[in-house]
């Protein structure tokens, strides 16, 4: 049967038309039934819908977990968002389920059932709304009877709305359910560790310092003042080949890991923070290794050319003295600078190659053929040695494209010269000089990155030490709580009465903590006075200038250890040692020495002839050295 709408059927609105009351009452009953259905739905399924919304909210750790870098306070916010989404969804389900009005016929039959009638109202509705004009006394009688029944009928009585037996209790239960759901949804495993082992003030200060340095590291490579203008112009001249993206990536990864470690510390995840700090150290080690390799490659090349040029320059000086030429004097200038250690190996390589190129293009005037041939033979020998050295470097795994290109250029130059093609050899040597400049640029970029990473590593080492101390302190606290105290040995000179009553081991750790706190206070004080770069200066070796700084090192530590940065490591080992046994692993302490080693090797304190021996020694004691290439 078609639905009946009195408003759409003008003939039904006429008072003379039979069945108006029936249609009107049925329309009212339809709305009443919809309200009843809504109420019934609310009573019957409201709890389920609320439970569904609460379940979604409580499942927040699974459906919308927090990333390790996100703050824990985001958990309750997400739970509330999920709660709102769940409630809106359940509301939409509720509206969709109860939106439609029941049909007029179904409503009429419902009224029949409610009144105990057998289809009288339904039949009367049908008769009243049928479009055929067949008139029947029984139809009108049916309508009349239905009208009489429905007139003044209290719909609220015959179609009552279902109500909850305990509305207040229901509302209270719902609110409680929502609160519990939000609480459960806000839970994150990090809360447990954060509440059990909250970060100490020292750790928090070190984390802040680490983040600050990481931010500075992010900005430093773009700082125009950090790059020498002359070097920039030189780099631009050799703009072919790869840039320092590898270096920047390494620095960026280290910076992110440092930030991640800070985030993990904020979440109380000390183990995770230690892992990240260890990864920072590994990144620094890798950057240092790469820088050393590049430096070594350039030095080998320079050495090959230097030895050649040295002999040549001596002979050239003598020949120049004889011939009055100036070529030998120019050739001897670079080796002298290289001997003094004041120039960079790439500059030596470029200078040597430039002189050789010039010599090939413009042979010395006045020299006889025999002398010229001897000179060409000697140049060929130098080139072959340099090509061999570069080739050996390029053949090693991990060699860069610039190294391989430099080796190829030198090979081409040697081959061309062996064939007597001086111009081709000169061109190849010029190209090799460009590759050497490129290698130098990469080395400098890696050096800058290592510099920044060393600063990061400085803070990371302090933070790592503080974390380990805190963990050790907590373990000893747990032991004391468990009644497994030591044999009553008196503690060291502690500051507080609690420390005074602790064991010797815990006293040692306490003193280490105090030392760390004093160290941190020194940092903070210095930072409050000077600029950021000045503050970083005492703890990070200046690789460009080849000088180490001891501004923040104490006098006693300087007396004790002649290696500047080693002071802190010795302090750490002393602080961490309990009962004569160090608790800090050598692997963890060594990175602090690493920068010092490089500093020392750059200085004139170590004789150049012994530098390789010293370097090999430190390489051999480097943790994991047997695995590194």
């Amino acid at each position, binding site marked *: 049967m078609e639905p009946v709408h009195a408003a759409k059927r003008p003939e039904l609105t006429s008072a003379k038309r039979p069945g108006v009351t029936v249609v009107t009452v049925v329309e009212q009953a339809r709305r009443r039934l919809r309200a009843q259905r809504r109420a019934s739905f609310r009573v019957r399924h409201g709890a389920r819908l609320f439970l569904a919304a609460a379940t979604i909210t409580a499942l927040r750790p699974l459906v919308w977990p927090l990333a390790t870098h996100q703050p824990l306070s985001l958990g309750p916010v997400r739970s509330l968002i999920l709660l709102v989404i769940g409630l809106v969804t359940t509301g939409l389900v509720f509206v969709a389920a109860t939106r*439609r009005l*029941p*049909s*007029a016929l179904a409503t009429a039959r419902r009224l029949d059932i409610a009144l105990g009638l057998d*289809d009288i109202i339904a039949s009367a509705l049908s*008769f009243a709304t049928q479009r055929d004009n067949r008139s029947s*006394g029984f139809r009108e009688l049916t309508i009349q009877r239905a009208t009489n029944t429905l007139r003044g009928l209290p719909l609220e009585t015959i179609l009552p709305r279902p109500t909850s037996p305990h509305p207040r209790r229901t509302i209270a239960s719902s609110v409680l359910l929502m609160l519990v759901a939000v609480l459960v949804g806000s839970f994150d495993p990090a809360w447990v560790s954060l509440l059990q082992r909250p970060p100490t003030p020292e750790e928090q200060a070190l984390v802040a310092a680490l983040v600050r340095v990481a931010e500075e590291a992010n900005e430093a490579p773009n700082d125009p003042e950090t790059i020498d203008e002359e070097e920039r112009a030189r780099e631009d001249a050799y703009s072919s080949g790869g840039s320092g993206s590898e270096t920047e990536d390494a620095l960026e990864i280290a910076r992110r890991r440092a930030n991640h470690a800070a985030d993990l510390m904020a979440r109380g995840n000390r183990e995770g923070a230690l892992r990240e700090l260890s990864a920072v150290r590994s990144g620094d080690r890798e950057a240092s290794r790469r820088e050393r390799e590049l430096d070594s490659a350039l030095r080998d090349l320079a050495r090959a050319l230097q030895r050649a040029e040295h002999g040549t320059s001596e002979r050239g000086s003598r020949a120049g003295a004889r011939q009055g030429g100036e070529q030998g004097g120019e050739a001897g200038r670079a080796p002298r600078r290289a001997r003094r250690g004041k120039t960079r190996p790439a500059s030596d390589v470029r200078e040597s190659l430039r002189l050789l190129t010039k010599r090939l293009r413009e042979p010395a005037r006045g020299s006889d053929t025999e002398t010229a041939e001897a000179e060409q033979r000697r140049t060929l020998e130098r080139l072959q040695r340099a090509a061999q050295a570069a080739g050996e470097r390029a053949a090693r795994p991990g060699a860069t494209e610039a190294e391989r290109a430099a080796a190829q250029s030198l090979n081409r130059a040697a081959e061309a010269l062996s064939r007597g093609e001086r111009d081709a050899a000169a061109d190849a040597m010029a190209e090799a000089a460009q590759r050497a400049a490129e290698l130098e640029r990469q080395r400098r970029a890696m050096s800058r990155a290592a510099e920044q990473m060393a600063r990061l590593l400085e803070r990371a080492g302090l933070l790592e030490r503080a974390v380990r101390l805190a963990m050790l302190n907590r373990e000893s606290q747990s032991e004391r709580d468990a009644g497994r105290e030591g044999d009553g040995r008196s503690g060291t000179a502690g500051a507080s009465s609690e420390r005074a009553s602790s064991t010797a081991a815990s006293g040692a750790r306490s003193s280490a903590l105090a030392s760390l706190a004093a160290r941190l206070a020194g940092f903070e004080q210095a930072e409050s006075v000077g600029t950021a770069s000045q503050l970083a200066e005492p703890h990070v070796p200046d690789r460009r200038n080849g000088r180490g700084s001891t501004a923040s090192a104490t006098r006693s530590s300087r007396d004790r250890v002649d290696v500047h940065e080693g002071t802190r490591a010795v302090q750490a080992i002393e602080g961490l040692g309990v009962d004569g046994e160090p608790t800090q692993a050598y692997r963890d302490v060594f990175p602090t020495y690493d920068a010092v080693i490089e500093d020392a090797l750059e200085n004139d304190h170590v004789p150049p002839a012994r530098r390789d021996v010293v370097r090999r020694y430190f390489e051999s004691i480097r943790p994991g050295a047997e695995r590194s290439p």
Partner: protein
Amino acid sequence: MSKEAVDPIDTEATSATEHERSVDPDESGPHPLYEAAPRHRERSKEDVEARLTRAQELANAIQVGLRSVIFGQDETLEHVTTCLLAGGHVLLEGAPGLGKTQIVRTLSTLLSGRFARVQFTPDLMPSDVLGTSLVVSLPNGSKDLQYREGPVFTNLLLADEINRATPKTQSALLEAMGERTVSVDGVSRPLPRPFFVLATENPIEMEGVFPLPEAQLDRFLMKLVLKMPDLATLTAIAARAEEPDLPCAVTTPHDLEATQAIAREIPSAPHVLSFAARLVLATHQIEGARYGAGPRAVQALMSCARARALMVGRACTSIADIKAVAVPVLRHRVALGFEAEAMGVSVEQALAGLLQVVPDAEPKNASGS
């Protein structure tokens, strides 16, 4: 009313004594309501309501009269009354002694109409039921053929053990039931109105019987099954005299016919008609059914529903009426196959299940506007 005596048929008619007790139609005449209310004339609502009330009272009087004689078969009596008002015929199935003949006799008394009983036997011929032409001597000495009416010319006919007659005789009666006329020697003779046949079947002695074909069964409006009365009913029967006094007549055949006309006027709403149609269609979906009910079943359902609405004084039919008469109306119109019988499913069980399955409203209506 003249007494009927047709040999060799065991025919009974209401006695003169019973006539005296009954309402004489000549004396009482047709009810003023029927006289004053032509069938096709517009009547006022009060007039219609008065007619309906009168018809309801008549139906109730018939039922009360039947119940005063027949104990423990109220549902059957209600259905018999329904069939009577709907103008259909009833097939009664039951063991001997359950009151089948008594129902018809009581009914004839209540209606003050003619009553005849035919005991169907295998040697019963159609002419024994319909009548035949006999050679008679005229007063002038000549002879002529004169038609002599059979027992079928009555208001109420009890066809006892109808399945014992040959199909030829059965079909002769069933044709008269359907057409309400008898054609003998090329002459069509109408049967008296109302014409109500109540046939019986004995389900116990099934040897040597001729079961009624399904097409013939369809002529019966209802098939009622008489059940063995319970202890209380049997006790009441035992406490009563062997031959109960028959009740007085409560109406006349003319009034009954008028009441049947009122029942036919009762309207049905579309959703009620739809339910009846869906119910009949659903009989074809019964698992293991050999065949379902045909279109005549819908007519039968609606006729019975109208009569039932009249009996309760309602001016329209309802789905409840359909449901109330569905089983006796559809019982003999649905045949189950061997599988269903093997599973022990009876037609009544299948129809009861069907009434639970078929929704009252059409699905699209049930889904809302």
